[in-house]
């Protein structure tokens, strides 16, 4: 998995209520959720995101609610990968389960500014800031989680398991 896009940069503790406000949780339609992604933090977000763009944030990205609508909204808004210094644990799990690529890499976060062009090689864990030329190495997923991702998410993994049983 390789992605290239423009970086959109945010701070720490970006919570699930600003990623997708609860007033839109009366639906689970991905495209409708995507229309309101990040609305309360950055009203211009959906207008400026181009397919493949990259979301970059500081610590504790996705804190708060367990709503899976958050990674779904980000993915369907066109974001290819989220790079953060750390992720809140339910968001981390939900991103893996729903197939939104995420990477923990504090150095990359410090080395990427809003508007930079960034290339991410998710398999190799290499993040390249094309604007500055800087290259960063993200922490790899534990093999167990890599297996879930390679099987195509948790539902696919479960499918194989119940099929085999």
């Amino acid at each position, binding site marked *: 998995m390789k992605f290239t896009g423009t970086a959109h940069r945010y701070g720490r*503790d970006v*919570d699930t*209520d*600003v990623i997708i*406000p*609860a*007033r839109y*949780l*009366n*639906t*689970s339609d991905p495209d409708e959720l995507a229309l309101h992604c990040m*609305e*309360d*933090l950055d009203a211009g977000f959906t207008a400026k995101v181009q397919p493949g763009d990259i979301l970059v944030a500081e*610590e*504790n990205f996705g*804190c*708060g*609610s*367990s*709503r*899976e*609508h958050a*990674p*779904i909204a980000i993915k369907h808004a066109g974001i290819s990968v989220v790079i953060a210094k*750390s992720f*809140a*644990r*339910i968001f981390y*799990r*939900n991103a893996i*389960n*729903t197939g939104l690529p995420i990477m923990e890499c504090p150095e990359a976060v410090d080395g990427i500014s809003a508007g930079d062009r960034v290339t991410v090689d998710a398999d190799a864990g290499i993040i390249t800031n094309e604007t500055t030329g800087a290259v960063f190495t993200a922490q790899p997923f*534990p093999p*167990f989680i890599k297996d879930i991702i390679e099987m195509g*998410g*948790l*539902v696919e993994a*479960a*499918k194989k*398991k*119940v*099929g085999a049983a």
Partner: protein
Amino acid sequence: MPRPMTITEKILAAHAGLDEVAPGQLIECDLDLVLANDVTAPIAIKEFAKIGVERVWDPAKIALVPDHYTPNKDIKSAEQAKMMRVFARAQEITHYYEVGCMGVEHALLPEQGVVGAGDVIIGADSHTCTYGALGAFATGVGSTDAAVGMATGRAWFKVPESIKFSITGQLKPGVGAKDIILHIIGMIGVDGALYQAMEFTGDTIERLDMAGRMTICNMAIEAGGKSGIIAVDDTTRAYMEGRSERPWTEYFSDASAVYARTYEIDAATIVPTVAFPHLPSNTRPVSEARDVKIDQVVIGSCTNGRYEDMAEAAAVIKGHTVHPDVRLIVIPATQQVFRDMMHNGLTDIFMDAGAAVSTPTCGPCLGGHMGILAAGERALATTNRNFVGRMGDPTSEVYLAGPAVAAASAVLGRIGLPEDLEEGGQS
């Protein structure tokens, strides 16, 4: 001899069929209960359909609670609730709670004896960690995890490190469980317990009733915690006795169990606390917040919507009138809480004061319905989150506190303490 373990490690080991586990280990556990609500169940049901099994793994071990946007807020939320109802009927889900017996899930399930000590529970709601108050391992997950749990009865976990919070000594008068947990979150931050289990011990905790213990474990997620837990004692046993629908199992941390960190907290240092916008960790003493005028007060939620919370608020507001500039919304968390309030005169106390008393719902806590804030408005709530836009317009503000402070503030028209009422309510 297995390695010395914490209560959390012991519960997880037993459910993974292992003699011992260690932090960082990836394990697969048998589940005792899988929970979802009207926001998270629709996605879980869609994902469940993709797995390729006809029936859920055990219809008695799934709880579906329509509490967030119910009684249905609008047509879209009615469709979501309907999807869940149709699924619950088709799958013959035992613990489906229709409007009329529905309550806020994390108050309802302990009250109904559906969760108990020693359980491993996943819930597609972040405040699932509440059940740690009964000595269970309970953690919030997303809809896809819930779907796979409903299909297989199993979930994977990374065994968390544990942090020990030892709270000892007498609480000052007017200081309660909400102040303890806000104090802790203020101390360690909203990611202070990221990926970790928060174990609460000490004689202060032992003296708390179950409602208070649930308030504390409920907000473990607000410190980033994977779970919160309090060991079983006679208070827990008295609560579960005659209520728990399954036999429970008690686990206790070994004296030599290893903790990532230990915090020793002197209960006497904790004061009535309020969390300012826009993070639960942004705490200050209530005594330093007296100039904050408010438009709305909400008493309720999975954090502070139990009978004991209502009684605490009613005792403060009795004989007073809600400030003319304030809307006070009181939401008992379950039908049983509502009924007990009526029988014991609490509903009258609130209504005499000028409060709106509502049927159970999560409602305003997540900005769903039943008390949404307009631009620039401020609310003080006994709920759990004060993120930007949490209760309504993105420019509105939410302050978090316990029931006594909420009741006093509703009368004062500003954030304040019950003792301020005796001084005539002047700012």
